[in-house]
């Protein structure tokens, strides 16, 4: 997987894979490859999401304190 790809780019690739399934374009030959690719993208997105959520959990209380004027 292209590690430098951004969230939008990765999501677009994932959407394209899902669309190819919806359109019935996936053959048995490339089924595994596409599944493997989709899994890698999803895991990457989840990892990024976890990291982002952790940062948000750290920063949100600070922003909330500012917003609430503590």
């Amino acid at each position, binding site marked *: 997987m292209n590690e430098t790809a951004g*969230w939008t780019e990765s*999501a677009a690739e*994932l*959407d394209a*894979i*899902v669309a190819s*399934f*919806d359109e019935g374009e*996936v053959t*048995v030959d490339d*089924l595994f490859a596409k*599944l493997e690719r*989709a*899994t890698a993208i*999803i895991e990457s*997105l*989840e990892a990024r*999401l976890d990291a*982002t*959520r952790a940062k*948000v959990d750290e920063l*949100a209380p600070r*922003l*909330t304190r*500012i*917003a*609430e*004027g503590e």
Partner: protein
Amino acid sequence: METDDRGDGETVYEVGAFYELLTERLESAYGRRHPHWVRGEIAKVYEKGHMYIDLVDAGSTASDTRRPVLNAHCWGTPWAPMKKKLAADGIALRPGMIVSFLGYVDVYAPQGKIGFSISQIDVEGLLGDVARRRQELIGRLQSEGLLEANKTVTVSPVPLRVGLVASPGTEGYNDFTGQLLHSNFGFDVLLVRSAVQGEGAPAQIIAAIEALDEHGVDVICLVRGGGSKGDLACFDDERVARAIARSSTAVMTGIGHTGDESVADLVAHTRAITPTKLGEHLVGLVDTWYQRNVKGPARRIVVATQEIVDESTEYVAERRRTMIFAVRDRLRAEQRHLASTRGSLVMHSRHVVNSAAQLLASRRQLLSAYDPTRRLAQGWSVTTRSDGTVVRSIDDVDVGDGLRIRVSDGSVRTTVDEKNGAT
């Protein structure tokens, strides 16, 4: 009384005797210390324990050497409470003022003066005069556009650098700075000490405003707690008003009590009714900016961030479910296809096998018609030479050759005795 007779009936007075006579005649004419009201314009005023005033007719000029001058004075004892009363009303006797005094004629022999001893001042009249002068000043400032001049100055949206003209330690100073101190905002107060009452106050206030304007601050605050009209008179000073109007920095005032409104207040960019209210106003300005530019965005960022995280989490979860179902569906479709293909193949194979079986049976039946054993049983035989070759013609053998004749149940050996052609 020291007098002399010239001998011609005329009396000659010594100087002192003359003044005694004069005093006696005046007192007999007006009564002893008979009071009179006298109105005039103050030409000179001088205070040293007692108050000395030169009073002239209003409108007369100093160049007129013949204009009458009344040397009035007010001795220290009556002057002290009078001065206090005037100060409380914001009045300081100055040249040019039109004033009415109640007093009596006073002959002061040591200096050879016939003066006027003041016992009372028409304060009401003076107040009216002060008010009239104040209105005239306001009119002048208005006609010159100075009432609005400082109001057009743009104030920083975050006025944290505050130039303060005040007297440290006073109630007004403490009230104002207390508001800034307890606001939790980082106000940077640059104080220029100034007297805020008394004769020297206007000059100090002007110098402070000009210094702060030159230094560069977000706003200049002119602060003074409550007091008598006299205490606050410096804020009605024309020079102070003009300094405020000239300032390129917004000047805000918090002077006196709720009911006080000085000329400085009218000229200022913003007028608060007290030092406390002025502090609150500044804090309010900063807080408004803080709410709009810091707290509001922070609140929106928190909400938007959570929405993005939630949406992204849902997106990934949905894609994960979609992929699982899509792959399962695809595999099931392939399994169904394979199952269908397998069924077709079995049916087709059976058909082929059956066809082949039928063909084989047909061939077997056909071949059975040609079975040599059936021919041998019918009486046919097969003759072969010693090398095993079938004899099909008489030419295949010679007389004397040994032959084997095969029949249905066995074979016999024979020898060719003769050859005869077919007839």
